[in-house]
């Protein structure tokens, strides 16, 4: 009883004395999720920066083994680059359909994106299998260790991107364009385009510069 009186007097004093000049609730910026996801992407960028630095340092340590010029097949890399670039633009089309609130075209474009991602992965796995069959395993030289670490990490990101894509397709099919699903689609959009940005670095720094004499 004494507590309630104390509280009420305190409250009366607080409201009656003077107006307040501070926010009574915590201020959340709009779309905090998108900003947070962007920060995650930036930290992921640092992971790739470290892997690129390792490749930059060790990329010419062949240990009398095969070099990039012996191993890399540029037409295959060009094909892979095409797949990833096309998947970027088809994801963009899916986002445009989402803005118009059209469910079926969105899912159709997401399916195309996923298939292009799978094409990219299968070409990359074919390349890896080919290298390992030829004896160019990660254990062969420092160059190959850093190559497999960098390109493999990127491939792993694409794999999880596809898992995320399938999950979101199921979510959209079940619940439609609720705000949560739109937010998730926007996060995956950033992730997917970010992977394409990393791939620009990979095909330039690893493949194209690797075959230069």
């Amino acid at each position, binding site marked *: 009883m004494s507590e309630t009186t104390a509280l009420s007097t305190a409250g009366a004093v607080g409201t009656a004395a003077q107006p307040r000049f501070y926010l009574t609730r915590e201020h959340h910026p*709009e779309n905090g999720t998108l*900003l947070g996801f962007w920060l995650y992407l930036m930290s992921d960028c640092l992971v790739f*920066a470290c892997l690129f630095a390792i490749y930059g340092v060790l990329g010419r340590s062949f240990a009398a083994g095969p070099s990039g010029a012996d191993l890399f097949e540029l037409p295959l890399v060009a094909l892979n680059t095409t797949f990833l*670039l096309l998947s*970027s633009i088809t994801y963009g089309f899916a986002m445009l359909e989402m803005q118009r609130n059209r469910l079926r075209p969105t899912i159709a474009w997401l399916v195309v994106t996923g298939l292009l991602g799978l094409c990219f992965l299968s070409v990359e796995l074919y390349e890896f299998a080919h290298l390992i069959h030829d004896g160019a395993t990660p254990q062969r030289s420092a160059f190959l260790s850093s190559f497999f670490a960098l390109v493999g990490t990127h491939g792993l990101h694409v794999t999880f991107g596809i898992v995320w894509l399938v999950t979101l397709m199921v979510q959209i099919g079940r619940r439609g364009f609720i705000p949560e699903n739109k937010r998730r689609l926007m996060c995956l959009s950033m992730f997917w385009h970010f992977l394409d940005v990393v791939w620009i670095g990979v*095909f*330039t720094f690893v493949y194209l*510069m690797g075959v230069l004499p």
Partner: protein
Amino acid sequence: MSAHDDTAVHGGHHDDHHHDAPGAPHSTFKGYMTGFVLSVILTAIPFWLVMGKVFDKSSTTALVILLFAAVQIVVHMIYFLHMNAKSEGGWTMLALIFTLVLVVITLSGSLWVMYHLNHNMMPGMMPGDIHTQP
């Protein structure tokens, strides 16, 4: 009440069809197509430079294709990731600049230090190091 406060704060510009996702980047077909066409061009030229062996010196080729990669990354950032100085009140741009500084330090620092390390630790460079070995 809180909703009214928010709209009052963001009353500067009104977007007609984004009430469910405020602050979301507004992407257009034209923007995506511009980015795509630019990316195709900026990808095709480096592949042509390397596969066609256009330049005699490989250092020239390396420099040029690195330049093309940098330009293409900027194109992707603008047209696909919708980066600008205004999104999220400038915080995405600030995070990006901070990350770029770290990336440049990581890459150039590693290459610079390890190059000189390799250069200076060649066998036989240290005077009398064979005798000091246990």
